[in-house]
């Protein structure tokens, strides 16, 4: 990471600590925000957070690795989380999974080389009556079928052309 980027990240984390507090209760909200903005929580970010909340870096890492939505490794700009729990499973989530893999050319747990998409499994999304269900970042999609997979991915791709990725992101 460049020194200037580090400085910016530090400043951001300080600002988050000012907003959420400097005790351990602020840990989750801070990490959630960092995850949101950067698609991961970097080694450096974890140490900054640990420093501000006066805990050990390994404690932050321990928390990050516990929660499915917090990641130390960079995820794609769009994280697609397909539900694999029972009701969606019974509604043929496997077919949706295969199509997602085909369309993106990656397997579950992977990120496309251009850094745009990550495929992940999720457990029950609370849309069991309308499965198969998936999340794209915060947005939920239900009754996903072949046609919908295509539309969803197209929608994501379109948003790239409207808001181009910042340069030098990796």
């Amino acid at each position: 990471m460049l020194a200037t980027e580090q400085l910016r990240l530090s400043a951001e984390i300080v600002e988050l600590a000012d907003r959420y507090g400097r005790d351990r209760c602020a840990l989750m909200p801070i990490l959630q925000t960092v995850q949101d903005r950067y698609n991961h929580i970097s080694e450096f970010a974890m140490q900054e957070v640990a420093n501000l909340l006066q805990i050990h870096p390994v404690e932050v890492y321990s928390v990050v690795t516990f929660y499915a939505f917090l990641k130390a490794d960079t995820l794609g700009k769009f994280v697609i989380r397909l539900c694999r729990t029972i009701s969606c499973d019974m509604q043929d989530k496997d077919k949706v999974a295969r199509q997602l893999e085909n369309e993106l050319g990656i397997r579950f747990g992977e990120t496309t080389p251009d850094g745009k998409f990550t495929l992940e499994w999720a457990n029950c999304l609370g849309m069991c009556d309308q499965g198969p269900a998936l999340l794209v970042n915060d947005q939920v999609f239900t009754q996903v079928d072949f046609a919908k997979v295509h539309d969803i991915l197209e929608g994501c791709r379109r948003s790239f052309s409207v808001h181009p990725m910042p340069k030098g992101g990796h």
Partner: protein
Amino acid sequence: MSLLKKGPIFSSGILPDEGLKRALTLTRAEIISEVRESGLKGRGGAGFPTGVKWNLAAAARGEHKFVVCNADEGEPGTFKDRVLLTDYANLVFEGMTIAGKAIGSHQGILYLRGEYRYLLGQLEGVLDGRRKAGLLGQNILGKEGFNFDIEIRMGSGAYVCGEETALIESLEGHRGEPRNRPPFPVDTGYLGNPTTVNNVETLVLATAVLARGAQWFKAIGTDKSTGSKLFSVSGDCERPGVYEFPMGITIAQLLREVGGESAKAVQVGGASGTCVPASLFAQTLAFEGVPTGGSIIVFGPGRDMLKVARNFMEFFVEESCGQCTPCRYGNVALLQGIEKLEKGRCSMAHLNELLALGESMQLASKCGLGQTSPNAFIAIVKHFTDEILGRALPAQQA
């Protein structure tokens, strides 16, 4: 999608904040005894009497007290809290405010699962509206000295955080690992303070109890399970969705309502609940019958029950917090057992050992997750022994 069928409570025409307004005319003890009298039991799964819980939190010594609304709804096949948060958010917050009044708390926290982040903006909007309307904040509805506000905190993808002490750990910035109990949250909860953790639906029902009175509420349902229940119905049925039925409805009745009469089994209470075969569909859905947090998953005649068991065990292997031995490794052992069954490599003796292991997990695990994760496996093995042991081997099996 909203409620597919409203039952006695949601169609009763209770006015907004009627319950809260009445609560403000009562003393704390009166509110609690009204709730206790109503027989309302927690809808989050464990079925603990809500009045008793509030009373314990009210009686516990502590400068600060907290009302936590458990909106971590993660039990597979459960989505009724999502519907409540979408369509009835005002009722949820009203219920929290009543709980605040009852136990003497000024601070409520709604713990919203990360998967429901898309509801956050809307919920914040409802909170703002309530603040503007004087339903939250200082001197609520003009009641001198009654201050209460609500903050929303997010989860980040961990089913176990629905367990109340894990939820509190998560709020405090830790891994969602359930605590030892005693002490219980009503004594030593969030930041060591007395805390009542209630399910979304419980709080909504509490507003009805306050609005219409305990007697009215008690008249619905059965003696031991008063009121109505929201059922999240999914799986092999014609009309999946959320239904309100009085407590005590039989499984067969419910299946008729949702178009699932041909089912060979029903999973009641989600992955951690139990699997009921068709022969037992006359059982009632109630605390004294088959208890449930509201999840009903219907298995049609063609379902492979071993595959169902596998899906459940994969869920628990993934979602166990990993803290205690029986659950961390026990779920894996059961899953491996299922793999052996699939391959036709599981002796009766080993199957019995696995059932015994399941019992040990139910008995010795630290929290409700490990105590219930073997339920489905045990029930499926018990009710579908023939299907499981006599199955054809996969073709490629050497």
